[in-house]
C-alpha cells in the first residue's frame, strides 16, 4: 500500500471531519451568542447554561482542524493562514472576547454583567462573520480579487445565519416555556434568510470559480452529484416544516430541526470536499504537494486512530451527562 498516497488522503478527511464537527458544535454556541441580546435577563442565564458545559470542547475542534492543517499539510498551513491574516486575527479576537465573557459575566459582579453580555454577543458576531469570510476566501483559492472578495462577503453573512439557526434549534432541545417560544420565533425569522443565502452561494460558487464550475457541470459527474442538492433541499424543507409545526415542536421532537441542520452541513461539506479535491488550496496546491513527510504522518496517524474514537466517546458521554433541559449553571 502506498502510504505517501493514502496518508494525506486520510488527514484531508480527518481535517474535513474536524471542521464539520466544529461548524455544527461551535456553530450552535456562537449562534446562541448572536441571539443573546434578544432575550431578557433570566433567559440569558438559561441560554448560557445551555452551552456552558460544552463550549470549551466545542471550540477545541477548530484547534484540531487547524492542527491537522499544520501537522499534515505544513506548506498549506503557512499559505492559508498568511493569506487569511486579517480575518483570522479578527476571528481570534472575537473568540477571545466570547470565551472570556462566559466566565466574566457571572464572576465580575452584577454591575458589570450587562457589559459582558454585550461583549459575549459582539465576540460571537465578530467570530462568525470572520469565519464566513475565511471560508469564502478559502473556497475561491485565496486570490483576493474583487469578485472573490464579494463572494467571501456573501459567505461572511451566510455563516452567522446558519449559526443562528443552529443556536435556535439547540434551544429547542435545551429549553422550555417562554424561551422555547422565543427560540421558535427566532428560528422562523432566520430560516428564510439562511436558505436564501445558501441558494445564492450555490449559484455564485461556480460563477466565481471556473474549476468548480467544471467539476459541477460536466457529465456524467453532474448526474452523480444531483443527490446532494436534492437531499439538501429536502433537509431544508424539513427544517422549515419542524419550525412551523406546533405538533412536532410541542411533542418534544424539536431536535429534528437540529438534525436537519446537521444533515445540511454534512451535505455541504461533501459538496465542498468534492469541489476542492484534490487541492487543499484551490488551483495552487494539492494535498500531496502540501503534505509533510510520510514518517511524520504515520506517527500522527497512529495517535489519531487511537485517540479520535476515544475523544468521540467521551464527547458523547459528556453530552449524556448534561442531557435534558438546561437549568441554572451551578458549580455545586
Amino acid at each position: 500500500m502506498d502510504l505517501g498516497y493514502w496518508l494525506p488522503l486520510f488527514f484531508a478527511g480527518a481535517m474535513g471531519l474536524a471542521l464539520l464537527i466544529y461548524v455544527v458544535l461551535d456553530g450552535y454556541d456562537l449562534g446562541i451568542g448572536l441571539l443573546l441580546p434578544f432575550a431578557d435577563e433570566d433567559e440569558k442565564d438559561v441560554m448560557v447554561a445551555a452551552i456552558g458545559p460544552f463550549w470549551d470542547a466545542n471550540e477545541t475542534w477548530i484547534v484540531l482542524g487547524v492542527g491537522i492543517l499544520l501537522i499534515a499539510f505544513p506548506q498549506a498551513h503557512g499559505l492559508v493562514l498568511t493569506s487569511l491574516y486579517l480575518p483570522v486575527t479578527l476571528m481570534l479576537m472575537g473568540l477571545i472576547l466570547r470565551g472570556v465573557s462566559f466566565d466574566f459575566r457571572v464572576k465580575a459582579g452584577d454591575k458589570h454583567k450587562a457589559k459582558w453580555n454585550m461583549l459575549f454577543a459582539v465576540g460571537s458576531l465578530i467570530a462568525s462573520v470572520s469565519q464566513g469570510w475565511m471560508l469564502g476566501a478559502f473556497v475561491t483559492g485565496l486570490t483576493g480579487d474583487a469578485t472573490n472578495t464579494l463572494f467571501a462577503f456573501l459567505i461572511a453573512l451566510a455563516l452567522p445565519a446558519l449559526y443562528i439557526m443552529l443556536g435556535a434549534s439547540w434551544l429547542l432541545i435545551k429549553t422550555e416555556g417562554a424561551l422555547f417560544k422565543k427560540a421558535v420565533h427566532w428560528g422562523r425569522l432566520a430560516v428564510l434568510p439562511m436558505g436564501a443565502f445558501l441558494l445564492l452561494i450555490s449559484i455564485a460558487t461556480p460563477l466565481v470559480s471556473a474549476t468548480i464550475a467544471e467539476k459541477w457541470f460536466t457529465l456524467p459527474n453532474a448526474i452523480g452529484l444531483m443527490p446532494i442538492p436534492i437531499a439538501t433541499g429536502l433537509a431544508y424543507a424539513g427544517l422549515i416544516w419542524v419550525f412551523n409545526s406546533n405538533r412536532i415542536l410541542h411533542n418534544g421532537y424539536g431536535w429534528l430541526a437540529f438534525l436537519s441542520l446537521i444533515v445540511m452541513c454534512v451535505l455541504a461539506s461533501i459538496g465542498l470536499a468534492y469541489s476542492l479535491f484534490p487541492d487543499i488550496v484551490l488551483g495552487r496546491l494539492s494535498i500531496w504537494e502540501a503534505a509533510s513527510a510520510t514518517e511524520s504522518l504515520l506517527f500522527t496517524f497512529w495517535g489519531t486512530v487511537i485517540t479520535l474514537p476515544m475523544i468521540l466517546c467521551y464527547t458523547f458521554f459528556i453530552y449524556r451527562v448534561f442531557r435534558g433541559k438546561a437549568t441554572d449553571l451551578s458549580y455545586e
Partner: protein
Amino acid sequence: MEFDPFLLARLQFAANISFHILFPTITIGLCWVLFYFRLRYTFSGDKAWEYAYFFWVKIFALSFALGVVSGITMSFQFGTNWPGFMERAGNIAGPLLGYEVLTAFFLEASFLGIMLFGKNRVSNRLHLVSCALVAVGTSFSAFWILSLNSWMQTPTGFRLEDGVFFVDSWWEAIFNPSFPYRLAHMLNASLLTAAFLIMGVSAWRARRQVDGPATWKVMRTGALMAAVLAPLQVWIGDLHGLNTLEHQPAKIAAMEGIWETEKGAPLTLFGFPDEEAKTNHMAITIPHGASLILTHDWNGEIQGLNEFGDDIPPVAPVFWSFRVMVGVGMLMVLVGWWAAWGLFRRRDENRDNQIWLLRALSVMTFSGWVAVLAGWYVTEIGRQPWIVSGLLRTSEVVADHSSATVMGTLFGYVLLYAFLLVSYIAALRYMATKPARSLTLTPQQRAMKAERIDDESAQGEA
C-alpha cells in the same frame, strides 16, 4: 517612522505568548490543588475543604477560559506570523502539537464541563475522576508543548535535507536533552505559582476580615507547597542551567553577562551590559562565582559571548530577566519558609498576630507570574537569533506582512490583553471580597461526615 516588520512580528508573538502563559501557569498547578481539596473533602467529610474547592474552582474556570482562548490564538499564529517554521520544521513540530491537541486539549476541555457543573449529575467518584482527568490533561499539554520548545532549543533525532527537517527518531526528538529539565522546571513553577496565588488571595481575605476556616486551610496548603517546592525549584533550576551550559553556551554567557572566555569567571550580581562596547558597566562581581556555580569548579572555563560572533542573543534583556527570575525565586523560598513556620508551628489563625505574614503573602500573590515570565524571557530571548538552535534563524521563517498590518493587529492585541488582564484581576478581587461561606460552619458541622448539608442560611460564597 518605519518599523521593522520582523521585530513587530516577534513583538506580537511575544505579547501573545506572554499573555497566554500566565493562565496555563495557574491552571496546571491549581488543578492538582483542586483535586487535593476534593480528596480531602471526600476522606474527611470536612465541609471546609468542599468550600475551598467551590471557591477556587471558579477562579480555575476563569483562568482556564483565558488560557484556552489565548491558546487558540497561538495555534493560528504559528501560521500567520511564522509560516516558514512549519514549512521547514513542520515534520517534527506538527506531530508534537498534534499529540497535544489529541491527548490533552480534548481531555481537559471535555471533563472540565463535569468538573465545573457536574457535581450533582454524577457520583462523587466520577467527579473526582473528572478533576483528575482535567489535571492530567493540563499536565499532558505541558508535556507536549515543552517537548517541542525544548526540541527548538536542543534539537536531536532529526536529519536535514535541503533545509527541511525530517525525523530520524521520535524518541530522541521528544526526549531531547533539555526536555526533562524544562518540563520539571515548568511543572514545578506552575505548582509554585498556584501556591502563592492561593496563599495571597487567602491572606488578602484574612486582612479584609472575610475569612473563614477554609481560608486558613487553603493558606496552610499553599505554605506547605511553597516551603517544599521553592527550594526544590532552585535545585532544578541549577540542573537546568548546567544543561543549558552544555548545549547553549551563548545563552548562559548572556545570562551571566560574560563577554570574554575565561577560567575562574566572576559572577556578575549587578551591572549594565553594553552590546556596543561588549562589556558591563558598573558591574558588581564575585570573583570565580560564575565558574563555581556553572561548572562547580573554582577555575572552570566559561565561554564568553565574543566567541559566538554575531550569533548572540540580545544580552541586556536576557541578563536582566535572569536576575528578576532568580531574585523572585529566592524571595519565594524565604516567604515560603516563613509562611510554613508561621502557619504550622504556631497554628495561629488570628489575623492580628499574623499581620506581617499576611501582608507579605498578599504582596507575593502574583510572584509566580513574574518569575515565570522572566524565566521564559531568559530561555526564549536567549535562543535568538535562532528559532531552532544553531540550525534555523528566526528571520528566515517570518511571514511577509507589511509593518502597518502587523502594527495594527499588534496594537489591537495589546489593547485587548490589557483590558482582559485588568478585568481578570478585578474579578479575582471581587470574588475575594465575598465573605467566606465556611464562616457559618459550626464545630459539629465541621466534624460531620460527608453528605451535603442544606445550607440555606449561608451568606455569600465560600
